[in-house]
């Protein structure tokens, strides 16, 4: 039988089963169940849990632990993730694998505590200073959170990048049936030849560093990072297409909003309207090819991008579709969430 789990708790359990053995966090609504769960759960599996004195401290503990080869993670919500940006930039330059969960709440500033998607730019375009990206996922259900979190450390190790799971307050708080995977066998993981495990003989030193003062060296490093992101784009891009084959209007949304959009598609289909849904699962790399392909379909007349923001992902939708078809926007923000009926009304009004 499946278990009923809250999004935050399911992510925490999936992280442990996927190999997380070090968690560093600082409380903030609406993701507190993740550190709370980890505080007792990691103790059971011989891991390390620290409630840091601040978000800045927490991300730098992740920096240290990841550098020492541990499967380390942190979680927070929007204002807390902003505080972590310096550390994330250093981690990216140092090419360290780790996992960061952001259960987004309304901003800017201290904002509110209700769900939002207004950190899309921050998550996908870098966030901190410098030329870097993370592998960013936007799961839409508790089961998808589990599946993505379970493999997140493997992906992070493979590319030596942080993986970010970009959720929202709803996804953290919602309870749904889930099936949890078995524990990963950590003894079978390959040794990280770059890590500072501290168990060497002194013959060769590994150094974790983000200072590359020579321009040629730093340029080469930036090119190496760019190559990594290009490889990620080739291998990791994920997208869900729903009833797009004959669609005249294509809704695009990610995360929980995509589920609201899916209900809107179902309502509109019952009314005989040819509407589909395109849902990016990886937000970086963005599924450009899938969007381009759908945009090139003759039947498709227009796109409707819907987000819990004033319009952020829409920029990637416009780039990916090459503006072949018009892209309309419907957004709510501040913690307010649209209903499927709101979207239906908008599509009927905008759709020609």
């Amino acid at each position, binding site marked *: 039988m499946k278990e*009923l789990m809250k999004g935050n708790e399911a992510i925490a359990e999936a992280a442990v089963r996927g190999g997380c053995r070090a968690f560093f966090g600082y409380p903030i*609504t609406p993701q507190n169940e993740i550190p709370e769960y980890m505080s007792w759960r990691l103790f059971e599996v011989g891991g390390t849990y620290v409630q840091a004195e601040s978000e800045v401290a927490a991300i730098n503990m992740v920096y240290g632990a990841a550098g020492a080869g541990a499967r380390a993670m942190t979680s927070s919500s929007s204002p807390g993730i902003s505080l972590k940006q310096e550390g994330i930039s250093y981690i990216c330059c140092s090419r360290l694998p780790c996992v960061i969960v952001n259960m987004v709440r309304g901003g800017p500033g201290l904002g509110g*505590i*209700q769900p939002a998607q207004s950190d899309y730019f921050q998550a996908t375009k870098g966030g901190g200073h410098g030329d870097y990206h993370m592998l960013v996922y936007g799961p839409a259900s508790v089961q998808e959170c589990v599946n993505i979190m379970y493999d997140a450390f493997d992906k992070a190790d493979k590319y030596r990048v942080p993986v970010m799971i970009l959720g929202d307050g*709803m996804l953290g708080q919602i309870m*749904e049936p889930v099936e949890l995977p078995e524990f990963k066998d950590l003894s079978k993981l390959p040794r990280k030849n770059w890590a500072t495990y501290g168990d060497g003989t002194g013959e060769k030193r590994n150094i974790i560093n983000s200072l590359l003062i020579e321009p040629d060296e730093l340029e080469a490093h930036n090119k190496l990072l760019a190559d990594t992101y290009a490889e990620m784009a080739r291998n990791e891009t994920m997208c869900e297409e729903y009833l797009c084959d004959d669609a005249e209007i294509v809704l695009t949304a990610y995360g929980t909003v995509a*589920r609201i959009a899916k209900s809107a598609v*179902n309502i509109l289909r019952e009314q005989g309207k040819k509407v589909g849904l395109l849902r990016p699962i990886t937000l970086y790399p963005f599924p450009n090819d899938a969007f381009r392909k759908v945009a090139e379909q003759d039947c498709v007349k227009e796109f409707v991008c819907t987000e819990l923001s004033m319009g952020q992902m829409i920029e990637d939708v416009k780039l990916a579709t090459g503006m072949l078809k018009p892209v309309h926007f419907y957004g709510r923000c501040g913690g307010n969430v649209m*209903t499927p009926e709101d979207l239906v009304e908008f599509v009927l009004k905008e759709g020609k």
Partner: protein
Amino acid sequence: MESKIIIAGFGGQGVQSLGMFIAFASIHDGKEVTFLPSYGPEMRGGTSNCSVVVSDKPVASPIIASPDILIAMNKPSLAKFESRVKPGGCIIVNSSLIENKVTRTDVKVYYVDANRLALEAGNTKTANIVVLGAYTKISGVFSPEVMKAVIEHKFAKKPKVIPANFKAFELGYNL
């Protein structure tokens, strides 16, 4: 089958647990379900609500515009959600705390004297379980045996309270 339920009341009335009981029963029955709590700055005595969608198929939107069933545990909840109930839907009213009658004529209304019946069951905290009994009967989505199995499972660590909860459930179910 897809049933959308909004449950609302004061914090401390067991609004969230009531929703969770329905969610656990769904899993027990192999159904799909989403349970979305409100998580505002509420506290005991403040308002609290949750949205539950039970379905045979995977649930798309966990957000409910018009519920099939509204369970109103206190007066402000009825005032807030009454107009949103789908025509032909139903409202379960905790008449112990709500003296008003529902003004709409296009929905079925069930008045449940939940707090008094909870007292009769021997535990004033079981008012939500009285309503769970009434919901089980009215919706017909779950058998009473499934709900009682869920109650037994949820209170496994506090077996002393199970008899009063069973009694409360039956009082609600047999209204």
